[in-house]
């Protein structure tokens, strides 16, 4: 049985999509340093390649190349004829996280949870260790986000997918033009994620060559509070990680907050002050998050990487 590292301990800024039918990428794409790699069996794989991709992904998951790396696989939706085969192929190969597309309600997650339990038993995985990432792509999914996010202890994250959602809302998705049409959906899944204490991923940005537009969108979702974003090309990883990296000043300040908190605890003071301002628990928690992010981003502060 494989021990799986809890997703909560890992940075989760980037989730790189890799078509499950692309054999070359399945064996090489881990070099780009994405926080998560997601092998896709769904939209990027044509119907006549579904079997090929499933087989390739199964073999890739078992390959030493991916040993110790928590891989996400996007299976086909529950109501497709591919779903069960997909799920069996990836669970039998020890997948860490299953991304389920087209999630509209909590019942789907409970269904997946049960199926995973059966397959874990069949293939000798530790029960309950296969995690779930739910992708919300419709009005009902967005409205039911809290129920979905809290539907199973396997839930590690929730993600928004813009194109189907926009169509469901009788509009179209044009990332470069305007983000207002996604504002409600973004806020809804973000609140759900925070209620459930899981990760929250934003939509893909399809135009790989438009770095400026990509970074504009990244700035918006970072400010909203997203953990990260789904990516379609390795070239988007570095700009995303750089945008999420705290500034040296933020890191410096976070270290001072933590030091003040430690000091206050030592002398038994309930209230912490720094530079004459009160520091409470959420500020200390945020400081810890900043320091963790700085460590994974390699941010240098005076005196080197802390």
């Amino acid at each position, binding site marked *: 049985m494989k021990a799986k590292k809890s997703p909560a301990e890992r940075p989760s800024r980037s989730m790189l999509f890799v078509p499950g039918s692309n054999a*070359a990428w399945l*064996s*090489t794409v881990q*070099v*780009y340093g994405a926080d998560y790699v997601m092998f896709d069996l769904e939209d990027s794989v044509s119907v006549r390649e579904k079997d090929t991709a499933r087989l390739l992904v199964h073999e890739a998951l078992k*390959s*030493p*190349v991916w040993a110790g790396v928590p891989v996400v696989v996007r299976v086909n939706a529950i109501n497709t004829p591919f779903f069960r085969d997909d799920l069996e192929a990836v669970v039998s190969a020890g997948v860490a996280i299953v991304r389920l597309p087209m999630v509209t309600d909590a019942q789907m997650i409970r269904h997946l949870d049960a199926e995973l339990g059966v397959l874990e038993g069949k293939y000798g995985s530790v029960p309950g260790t296969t995690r779930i990432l739910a992708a919300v792509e419709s009005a009902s999914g967005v409205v039911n986000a809290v129920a979905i996010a809290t539907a199973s202890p396997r839930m590690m994250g929730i993600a928004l997918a813009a194109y189907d959602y926009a169509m469901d809302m009788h509009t179209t998705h044009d990332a470069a033009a305007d983000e207002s049409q996604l504002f409600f959906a973004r806020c809804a899944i973000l609140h759900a994620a925070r209620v459930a204490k899981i990760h929250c991923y934003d939509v893909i940005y399809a135009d790989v*060559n438009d770095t400026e537009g990509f970074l504009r969108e990244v700035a918006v979702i970072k400010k909203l509070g997203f953990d990260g974003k789904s990516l379609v*090309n*390795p*070239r988007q990883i*570095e700009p995303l990680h750089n945008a999420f990296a705290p500034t040296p000043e933020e890191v410096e300040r976070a270290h001072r907050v933590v030091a003040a908190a430690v000091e206050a605890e030592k002398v038994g003071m309930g209230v912490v002050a720094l530079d004459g301002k009160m520091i409470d628990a959420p500020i200390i928690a945020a400081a810890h998050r900043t320091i963790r992010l700085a460590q994974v981003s*390699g941010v*240098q502060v005076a005196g*080197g*990487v802390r």
Partner: protein
Amino acid sequence: MSGWQGRVPTDAVELAGLVPFAGPAPSTQADKDARRARKVVGSLTEAISRSGLGDGDTISFHHHFREGDLLILQVLAEVEALGIRGLTLASSSLNACHGDVVGYIERGVVSRIYTSGMRGTLAARISRGGLLPHPVQVHSHGGRAALMASGELRPKVAFLGVSACDEFGNANGTSGASRCGSLGYALVDAMFAETVVLVTEQVVAFPNTPAVIRQNRVDLIVVVERVGDPSRINVGATRTTTNPRDLLVARRATDVVEHGGFFVDGFSIQTGSGGAATAVTDYLGERMERRGVKAGWALGGITGSMVALHERGLVGRLLDVQSFDLVAASSLERNPGHTIVSASEYASPAAKAACVDELDVVILSALEIDLDYNVNVLTGSDGLMMGASGGHCDTAAGAKLVVVVAPLIRTRIPTIVERVTTLITPGSNVDVLVTDYGVCVNPRRPAVAERLAAAGIKVTTIEALFARALEICGRPRAVETTDEIVGVVRYRDGSVIDVVRAVAS
């Protein structure tokens, strides 16, 4: 009686052996037609005839137009029509566009080749053996200049394609239609060839200054319709890239440059060709601005990216032996800090001073690198010649920090091998290898490894990367070769460092 007559005591012992003045020679300069006819001839055939080219002689060319060269095949056609045979073809390099040279070899027009490299069908056919009567002599750019200086390679006629020259033969690569930019390789031919034929698209008014190839080295001038297609200069080796793998390697290589110990104000760098190597230039600009470090000069094949750094004030001077694209070619004309160096000044071990010896950092590519850091840039994993020696071993010998960039795996074949198929640059001259799977430092350079580690760069070993590659690809079967030697690899000093054997069919 003219004033000069009767003045010289011809029988004086002090003047024994000297020739008395016999009156001014009729000036060729006064008569416009005579003046033109002195050098400008009507056709390539006439130029070849007047040059005295005969069987077994050596003809030389430059490869500044790279994949756009149109001259070698034009000259070979005329040479064959004149019935001349058994020539040595000495181009500074050969490319995929020279596939038709195969026919001239088969028909006995060409029987020996000196070149820095070969690609395409010509390279494949020679590599399979049984074509060329003598093995190809593969030299570096600096090594070619040294072979010419030593006299081993002494062209009877150099045919040098230029976009424009005046009627005396003053030429540069920056005027006229088909501009190739630097003429650094051609300068060596102009220096050493017995007869220099400029093949130009246009004769412009004297003086065509600033001239790179000078009138006092030029014997004959021929006008042809086209000598080369400059739009094909950056086809092949010198492309810019959006390939994420190349960009990843480039970013890591830039980290290595930044923290390898030579990233200080006034440093010098050469970034070479190849997707990752050229991308390093772009990343380097960002680092230089962020850190407030400026380069003193950049050397070698100059790209548009390097010109951009120069124009932003980040690189003081550009020493250009070869313009890798049209941006670089036109920069030579407008930027006084961007100048040409000959292949001899660039890299010749026989020169009284070579720029490579002053170089701090060089980024180089590799087709294969072995566990002892030896590099092959000539033969592919199928054993066929497909690359060029270029300035690889020259710059590696001179530069203080030699960074080789390569993907760990190319379509299922590991780049790291136990023993390179062909040795071009000895591993003792290589400091760092940057791949998409990690960075490793030659154990001969512990100080570099320490500096990189101190900067937070993860350093692994070449053995670990090799193991990783095998884990993914398995161990490739060795290429079978015959006993026939099809290539002789000359190190920059002229010594033989390796041979290429024919691939068994």
